[in-house]
């Protein structure tokens, strides 16, 4: 088929048109579902996850035992995950098992499930899923034990990303300017912020002490008001960035683990 050849050649946009042509000509529901599935794969390859999801969404299954149902559900959960919506990816996986009762396909969805659980910070569930995944693989006892150790170590309390509290970062900066930034992992910026606030406040005090009341109040305290409140806000933003970075680093480690331990086998 021309569509399949184009897909195999990596011409996904052209392939998607050819699949649509077949969809246009087909009346058979089973063929229609398969062609839509293939078309969605083209969109996934083109990184157009919304379009892929819309196409998959339009596939109708009268019977959840349909062999394509598993593949469609898998792609839906994967596209949700790649589209930055891990909660929906998990929901899609749960929906599949709820509707199909197909426990044999458990391993099929596990990598996305683990990644999505990590993204939604459900560490304990992620760890259990990972261990379950290893068990399903039927590795040799020695390898299984080694992998279990790696996973247990990876998810140990001390190795999990320690998320920064945005509220705490803001409160630290409210109490002592600059400390919120230090708490969020930006010691340099925190120190500079502290020095700026301290200098402005000293200037204000010095002016008032020397009888320059208007200068001290308006220029000193007015400016301090800006740097102080700006610093509080900035501490919150930095904490949020830090959390994102911690999450990404941790997921990258898990990702590497999944790829190195399973795909190469």
């Amino acid at each position, binding site marked *: 088929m021309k569509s399949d050849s184009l897909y195999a050649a990596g011409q996904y946009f052209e392939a998607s*048109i050819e699949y649509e042509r077949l969809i246009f000509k087909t009346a058979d529901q089973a063929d229609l579902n398969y062609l839509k599935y293939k078309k969605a794969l083209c969109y996934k390859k083109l990184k157009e996850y919304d379009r892929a999801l819309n196409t998959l969404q339009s596939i109708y299954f009268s019977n959840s035992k349909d062999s394509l149902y598993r593949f469609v559900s898998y792609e839906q959960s994967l596209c949700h995950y790649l589209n930055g919506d891990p909660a929906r990816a998990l929901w899609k996986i749960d929906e599949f098992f709820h509707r199909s009762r197909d426990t044999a396909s458990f391993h099929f969805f596990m990598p996305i499930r683990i990644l999505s659980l990590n993204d939604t910070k459900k560490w304990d569930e992620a760890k259990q899923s990972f261990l379950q995944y290893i068990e399903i693989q039927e590795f040799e006892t020695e390898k299984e034990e080694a992998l279990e150790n790696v996973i247990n170590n990876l998810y140990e309390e001390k190795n999990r990303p320690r998320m920064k509290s945005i509220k705490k970062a803001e409160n630290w900066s409210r109490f002592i300017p600059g400390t919120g930034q230090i708490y969020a992992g930006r010691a340099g910026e925190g120190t500079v912020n502290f020095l700026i606030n301290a200098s402005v406040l000293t200037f204000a005090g010095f002016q008032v002490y020397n009888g*320059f009341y*208007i200068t001290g109040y308006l220029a000193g305290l007015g400016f301090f008001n800006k740097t102080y409140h700006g610093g509080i806000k900035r501490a919150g933003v930095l904490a949020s960035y830090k959390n994102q970075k911690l999450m990404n680093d941790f997921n990258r480690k898990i990702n590497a683990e999944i790829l190195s331990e399973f795909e190469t086998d």
Partner: protein
Amino acid sequence: MRYSLLIVLLLLIKQGISQENSELPFIKHLIDKEFFKEAIHLIDHDTTPYGEQQRDSINYYKGWAFYSLKRLEESTQSLLKVNRESAFFSKSYFFSGYNQLYLGNYSEARKIFGEMNIRSEPDLSLLNLELGGLEMLEGNWTKSKELLDKINKENAALHQQVFALQEIRKEHETHRSKSPVLAGIISGIIPGSGKIYAGKTGSGIASMIGTIGFGFITWENYRKAGITNAKTLLFGSIFAVNYVSNIYGSVISVKIIENEHKNAIQNQVLFQLHLPLRNFFE
């Protein structure tokens, strides 16, 4: 005679083959399903030898796909290739005229509407509505009134839009333009008042407090430390920059407000011109 029959036969066979290979039904399907990029790609790579009528349809579909993707210049180019004999002619020309209105190419839009050579209803009323809107966009409010008055009052499909355009005209007539010069002058007298005059009260009060505050600081330092003191010079400079930039800001604020008003009117007119086109042809 024998040769003539042979030629007719060959032509019929050719037309038959071309219809069989025609991508038109699939292109239409892509357009109906809103796969516009795909439709354009297919048209661009289609080498089927089409007849004139089919070519018109292809040009219309391509123009419509570009229009739907908001690529209005390319849409106009394709839509204008549709021939007068085509069933898509009227829609194509009205939409390419609208594309040019949207792009602000008013003379081009006028030329396109003129080329349509419409003499009968209901298209004539629609044309007058579009031309009336065009005059509004160009600021010819009296001429626009004349054109809107020509629209058939019994045309229910246009009644609402005519009313809306008349309301926009009334709003324009009652609108009092603000003067950037006046805003600058009053800001020079009382800092921030120009922005308040422009309608930006919050920003005006903030500018007022800032400029007056620096004024007081400069005055205090001048009184207690003298004109040559570094602090006097520093705060004096900040005050001066603040004062001048506030005057400039007030002038710009009025210009922005006036521009916003103009853009709002323009968008409202374009919206009212677009609605009947969709209703007429869909």
